[in-house]
């Protein structure tokens, strides 16, 4: 009887799903995101279907709906399109990349990030609306707190914190160099999409380096590349593009910085939970 509550309290993905769903409801109800329910349904349905199909094809034990649900919710929150088929394709690309683009038994790209960037650059019908979240300080604060709560559960906060701190440092340094008021970097940081990225995308423990030092390096690297894209190339969506560019470096970082491979449900005392251990193989993708 206590199986489900224990699993919920141990697996940080339940928290992530709860928070992403709350954000989605807030975005749709209060901020008028322009997210259509059919699109959300298409993304979630396709992601779950693709995960199930891939799991069966590869003969994985059990069906894990949590990870594809998180990818689907992230996609629903960030991807904008008027086409139902593009929405479904995004989910397919996300889950497909997870199973097909793998190095050393780890998938290379964050699934939602891969789908988002691929479609943004290949289809005129897909775009990312990073300004849609508004910039109220309260919102930023709420996001950060919620995100941190998730990270504390996942115990992999280094990537997010390193990214946010390096990104903030770069923005403030740039403002000081330009002689701009500090209200400008503050405004740039109080962006919902940026925080969503920092606390729900780059933080993905499955696609970040295994060692803590590697994750700090990785977070800072993504921040640098993001600034280069934003201010050197004058292109929007720097962080999202930087992440896909930096992701292939993770196996390299892993080679030099050894650490323990992250396994979902391991964020507690997995070794003592035999039923969870049985599912380990099935949930490692």
């Amino acid at each position, binding site marked *: 009887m206590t199986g489900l509550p224990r699993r919920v309290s141990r697996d940080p993905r339940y928290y992530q799903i709860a928070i992403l769903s709350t954000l989605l409801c807030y975005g749709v109800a209060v901020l008028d995101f322009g997210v259509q329910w059919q699109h959300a349904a298409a993304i979630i349905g396709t992601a779950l279907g693709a995960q199930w199909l891939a799991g069966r094809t590869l003969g994985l034990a059990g069906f894990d709906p949590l990870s594809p649900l998180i990818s689907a919710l992230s996609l629903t929150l960030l991807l904008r399109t008027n086409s139902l088929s593009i929405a479904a394709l995004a989910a397919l690309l996300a889950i497909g990349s997870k199973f097909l683009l793998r190095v050393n038994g780890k998938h290379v790209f964050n699934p939602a990030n891969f789908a988002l960037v691929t479609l943004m650059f290949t289809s005129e019908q897909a775009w990312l609306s990073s300004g849609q979240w*508004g910039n109220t300080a309260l919102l930023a604060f709420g996001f950060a707190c919620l995100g941190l709560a998730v990270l504390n559960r996942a115990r992999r906060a280094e990537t997010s914190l390193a990214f946010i701190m390096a990104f903030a440092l770069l923005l403030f340094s740039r403002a000081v160099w330009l002689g701009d008021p500090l209200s400008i970097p503050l405004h740039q940081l109080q962006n919902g999409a940026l925080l969503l990225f920092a606390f729900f995308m780059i933080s993905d423990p499955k696609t970040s380096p295994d060692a803590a030092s590697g994750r700090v390096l990785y977070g800072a690297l993504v921040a640098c590349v993001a600034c280069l894209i934003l201010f050197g190339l004058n292109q929007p969506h720097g962080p999202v593009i930087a992440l896909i560019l930096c992701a292939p470096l993770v196996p390299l970082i892993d080679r030099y910085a050894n650490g323990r491979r992250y396994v979902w449900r391991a964020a507690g005392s997995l070794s003592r939970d035999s039923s969870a251990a049985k599912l380990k193989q099935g949930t490692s993708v």
Partner: protein
Amino acid sequence: MKMLIAASAALLTFTFAGAVQAFCGFYVARADADLFNEASQVVLVRDGDRTVITMANDFEGDVEDFAMVIPVPTFIERGQINVAERSVIEHLDAYTAPRLVEYFDPDPCQRFDYDELRRQNGPPFPLAVAEDAAAKARSRGVTIEASYAVGEYDILILSAEQSDGLVAWLRENGYRIPDGADKVVASYLKRNMRFFVAKVNLEAQAKSGYSYLRPIQVAYESKKFMLPIRLGTLNAKGQQELYVYALTRSGRVETTNYRTVKLPSNLDVPVFVKDEFGDFYRSMFERQTAANGNRAVFLEYAWDMAWCDPCAADPLSADELRKLGVFWVGADNRNVRPAQAQDVFVTRLHVRYDQRHFPEDLIFQETGDRQNFQGRYVVRHPFAGKASCDIGDYEQALRERQSREAEQLANLTGWAIDDIRAKIDFAGGEPPAAEEPWWKRLWN
């Protein structure tokens, strides 16, 4: 002393005592840019990295005192600057303006389907209804890279190594620059932006025969899809009004660093709003701005330029689009009918900004969104003919509808509900009685 109207691509209108800004009243059924004092209008044509920007201002002071300082992302040559006709921007403004449409209730004796009456939302009927100077400049670290005469303007292309040099040069030459401009100019210079100054050549202006200043156009190629508004926020006059009309190929334009919010639209309002559409629109815009923390950019229109429904004005012709810098539309295609596909998508953004809420320049992106959107408000006139039957039910439904419209208007504008109700000509002469609380008769 000359006055400076510094236009950073977004018409950074520094206004000073004595500078009269145009206010032309309002149209009955269209909410044009004229509705707001000191509104700047910018047309941004963009495809790839190619940009043509047209800046219109409503300066009405002594033209001798007029000058604009315009930051641009790249070096500009003579051929990249042009003077446009104001009428084209006025046409674009009219075409994209929020509109009021009206319906007339049919004879209730011929059509008794009141539910249908309440729901009806059929196609609307449109209602519209020099050498020394150069040496001096060099001593300030400012190089006048070129000077051109374009239309009634003298254009000076400046390059400066130091912002204080540029600001000092501008001050020495009689321009009044607000405090804090040095820092903003320095910031732009470090980002490799160039500046040009446009002054009015009085002789050329007299010859041109225009009593107003025509919009200045600049064509350039840059990755930066942005509008520098920071210089404009420096003056102490508070909030400024800006309209951006983006003409693109793929779809709607939105800001990436501020929220782009759709203005409430497709709403029924009481019939008297027809006579107060300007007031209605201003109040609504004010309320929406406040409701979004004074930080939102509002979408007022997003439409394929080939058509409109209802039309506040005809779509722009290929010739007019070409004048605005839409370089991908054929120049010699004079036979293009407005109804034909123009491959132009227009986005009208309206922003009220100040330094506190808009610390950063506006940065845009072109999206793939081709869904049409317009600011559209509806008045429904009650049936005014002679009824040949008992229309009690119709009047009851009408009173309820009028009551709902009053509440909707109060919510949209913040106007007092009692004032609104007093202006409504309720069916039967009486407003519907306030609904009795459910508990009133509970124990009686």
